[in-house]
């Protein structure tokens, strides 16, 4: 037994290790439906957290069988969605996001763009996108760029992923947001990702990015641009109060020395926006 493994995991580990892919698939289908609890944990661990907790202590062979089972279940959902309960589907998407199954990404992307499946997925569409996002790399940028047009209400997540995997694309997509996607929700999502995005850039690239962000901000309706302005302030890149109050062409200030000013700006203008 792994020295760090809680003793209580052992029975569950033994069960998973003993099952072949076919039996494991059925076991997993039942667990995801919440109809059986063979693993260890608190009530609110079930089913996804409990599976994730045990997964790391499985042998490589059992881990592969379990990820194969996840793959078979996503095929099952895709071909017979009516056989899946809403919570079970959501739990499957959560689990795909947690396990190392990047090979599923392409398959899930087709699920996301399937017009017949989308109504079946319903509110779990957000969780499906989260699963795709967790395994996305630069090679998936086309999916996220097209999502902005395909499902504009999720453009915020597309911007977050692009900010991480394709910094060049994120600014371009932001500058060309279709009206349906240029919402407070989209800009709010980007604002939350902005500190990490800016921190990931080299100094010169960061200055250029901020300049482009400020230009974009000025083109957006004020009902949504306040998110961007505020996020820049929180990230330490403020806009002078005087010019902000009286001119459209604001002066950007960079660096930590503006922190105090930025905090004041945030309290006065941004928070009440």
């Amino acid at each position, binding site marked *: 037994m792994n020295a760090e493994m809680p003793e*209580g995991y052992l029975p569950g580990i033994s069960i998973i290790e003993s099952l072949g892919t076919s039996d494991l698939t059925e076991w997993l289908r039942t667990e995801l439906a919440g109809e059986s609890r063979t693993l260890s944990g608190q009530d609110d661990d079930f089913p996804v*957290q409990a599976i994730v907790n045990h997964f790391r202590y499985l042998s490589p062979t059992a881990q592969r069988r379990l990820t194969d089972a996840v793959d078979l279940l996503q095929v099952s959902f895709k071909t017979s969605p009516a056989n899946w309960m809403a919570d079970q589907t959501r739990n499957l998407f959560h689990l795909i996001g947690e396990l190392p199954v990047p090979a599923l990404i392409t398959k899930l992307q087709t699920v996301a763009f399937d017009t017949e499946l989308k109504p079946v997925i319903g509110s779990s569409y*957000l969780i499906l996108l989260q699963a795709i996002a*967790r395994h996305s790399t630069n090679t998936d940028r086309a999916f996220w760029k097209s999502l902005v047009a395909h499902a504009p209400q999720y453009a915020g*997540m597309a911007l977050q992923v692009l900010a991480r995997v394709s910094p060049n694309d994120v600014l371009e997509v932001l500058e060309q947001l279709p009206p349906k996607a240029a919402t407070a929700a989209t800009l*709010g*999502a980007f604002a*939350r990702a902005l500190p990490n995005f800016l921190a990931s850039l080299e100094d010169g690239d960061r200055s250029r990015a901020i300049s482009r962000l400020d230009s974009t901000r000025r083109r957006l309706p004020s009902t949504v641009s306040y998110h961007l302005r505020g996020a820049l302030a929180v990230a330490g890149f403020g806009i002078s109060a005087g010019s902000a109050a009286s001119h459209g062409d604001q002066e950007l200030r960079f660096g930590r020395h503006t922190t105090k000013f930025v905090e004041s700006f945030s309290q006065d203008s941004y928070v009440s926006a």
Partner: protein
Amino acid sequence: MPFGDARSQLDSVRKQHLDGVLLAWEGSDSLRKQAAANLLGEAAFENSEHASYLASLADEHAELRAPHPRVLQAFERQGKPFLLAGAKSIPTGGMLFGRAILLRKFARYLSNTFADHPELNCVDEYDQVIATLRTLDGNDATFPKAHLRCYFAGIRLTSLGRGAVFATFVTPIRLNESPWERPVADAHAIRSAIALGEDPLGEDYLLFTYNLPPNRFARVPTSASPGWSYQRWYRPNPNAQVELHGWTSPIDPGHSRRPEVVHEELLGATVVFPLSVALA
């Protein structure tokens, strides 16, 4: 009602079955041994439901003797009606309770809230949910930054636990005092002090502070409350009838035990911000 008194209320057949189960468990693995010890040491019940619980366990004696996981399922099925059957606990008006939840797990439940409440306008990727929750450490909700508002609103709509929800508090009881000190202890200390032994090591915790709504009662936890796998970490409080609460049994003896109660599931509507994050 102490376990012995409850046992004595069983008819002879059930009593024999129950004794058989306990005897088998005492010679078995550590989880069964602890479950037997917990049942024998149980002294917190003051109602006849405890006798019903014991009777239901005795009725299932054959199944309870079977290997895991049927034991788990049987034990938890029998215990479900009695999760909150312990004695009424300390008065809760004006008290602040605390609960530690794995940050990654709560991020998943908060994502579900965002999915079910599109009016919150939050469509973050999972890693961003985790990152944003970390930034809420010490962040007051009185004047939230615009891009964080959906998080404060979402937390208020998200459940703080399932089944019998265990909560800690400050003793001696002081009204409006948070159970979490600052600077915040690290995740290892929290996991140990709250006895969250089935949680994986090395993960961050979100520390919630909240009030219990007036229509909710705190109860003394009993051996039915923690479920099967947490029997290993549960210890009945022999002084529960006087103290009106239980105590955690820290995993690492270097950490102090904490008082604990259980209550029904509830949403985070009464969460008192700021949250704290205990880092791994």
